[in-house]
């Protein structure tokens, strides 16, 4: 044994190197998921989304806070003004302009749309009438989760959407009672235009793909963030309808013919 008082730097370094792997660090927490969430889905206070939804006063407060956060610069910019202040016109949907450059995502295909089923079975599981676009006819696949996704594969007149691996994705859910939330984050190249669909208020979101985050129920069940293509979204009689496709605005509107 050597007397430590005579220890050289080399020996002390060796002792420290030996200690390194044994140093009593607490277990490393998994930071990746939290960091990802924070850099992708910034604004709204998540745990309160559903309470907010049911309390108009709180909702207005959050809207006001968001407006402040988005800032005067955003309000002054015509490209971003569109998304501000309108995000509660369609129930169950929050449209939100991202303050920072929109993240990119690897395509999530095939999408996890829930349990595949028949139209009849899907209908029996919800209390609203599932509407099938006459323009598209019977869907190629029907799913049931908290919302009802109707999937259409690409056709000559319907281009493939790389974000979904589908041609058209129609989603229907009860925006008034079913606590499904679509968070839509728009980047610089995306425009959001307020529209009227068969007389009901809605949104046409187009241009660069936008970010979508779906949260279902109050149980924390959520669908991963992904990028979404052009989307027409509106609400009628408590049911929110969403059509995601690579179609133009005019073609997307054509699909709404016959829908509520």
């Amino acid at each position: 044994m050597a007397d430590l008082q005579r220890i050289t730097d080399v020996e002390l370094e060796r002792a420290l190197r030996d200690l390194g792997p044994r140093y009593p660090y607490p277990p490393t927490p998994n930071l990746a998921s939290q960091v990802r969430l924070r850099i992708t889905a910034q604004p709204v206070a998540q745990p309160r989304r559903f309470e907010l939804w049911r309390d108009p006063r709180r909702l207005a407060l959050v809207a006001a806070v968001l407006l402040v956060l988005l800032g005067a610069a955003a309000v002054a910019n015509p490209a971003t003004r569109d998304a501000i202040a309108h995000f509660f016109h369609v129930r169950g949907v929050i449209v939100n302009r991202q303050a920072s450059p929109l993240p990119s995502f690897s395509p999530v295909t095939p999408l996890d749309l829930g349990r595949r089923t028949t139209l009849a079975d899907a209908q029996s599981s919800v209390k609203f009438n599932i509407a099938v676009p006459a323009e598209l006819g019977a869907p190629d696949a029907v799913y049931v989760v908290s919302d009802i996704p109707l999937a259409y594969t690409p056709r000559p007149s319907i281009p493939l959407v790389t974000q979904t691996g589908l041609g058209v994705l129609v989603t229907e859910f009860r925006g008034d009672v079913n606590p499904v939330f679509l968070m839509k984050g728009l980047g610089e190249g995306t425009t959001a235009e307020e529209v009227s669909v068969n007389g009901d208020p809605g949104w046409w979101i187009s241009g660069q793909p936008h970010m979508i985050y779906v949260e279902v129920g109050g149980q924390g069940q959520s669908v991963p963030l992904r990028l979404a293509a052009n989307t027409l979204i509106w609400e009628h009689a408590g049911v929110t309808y969403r059509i995601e496709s690579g179609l133009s605005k005019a073609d997307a509107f054509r699909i709404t013919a016959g829908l509520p």
Partner: protein
Amino acid sequence: MEGRPLDDIALVERARNGDVNAYEALVQHYQELAFRVAYQVTGNAADAEDAAQEAFVNAYYALGRFRPGAPFKPWLCRIVVNEARNRRTSAQRRTVLAERALVAQSSGDSAQSPEAAAEADAFRSTLVATLRTLRQDDRLILAYRLFFDLSEAEMAQALSVPRGTVKSRLSRALARLREALPADIRMPSPAGEHDG
């Protein structure tokens, strides 16, 4: 390890262009380092976790200012330390005692006799406790070099000092550690020093 900087350069470049998956891969690779560097500063796990998480978020938004091709690791360390320094709390003192107990149980050198293992544990416990009494800068530079294996160039970047300064600071930190160790402490017998 040698291939890592090249991976980093590619991942950082993708992340700079907004690829969240690429950035998540960087976080996964460096989260242990970030947490441990933060822990060296804060002395408690909760603050270290907060600091590391905040550092990764801040680093993401600072990627636009990150020089393409520059090493990611020391840049991240600098951000982590800045965050951690903002979070040091009085909980640090309590942690020293907890660490002393923990390190005593951490030895797994089955090749050593029980006596030698106990001696090595005692030595390491004392080393950890003594490290904790050092100035934060000394502790950090020793950890960078000897725990986290940063090169001198990386340390210079992480500490924002010239390379020559790194050498002198390291030397002074070692000297202060030696002085701070109990006078009667002895080096453990070298029986268990083989590296597995």
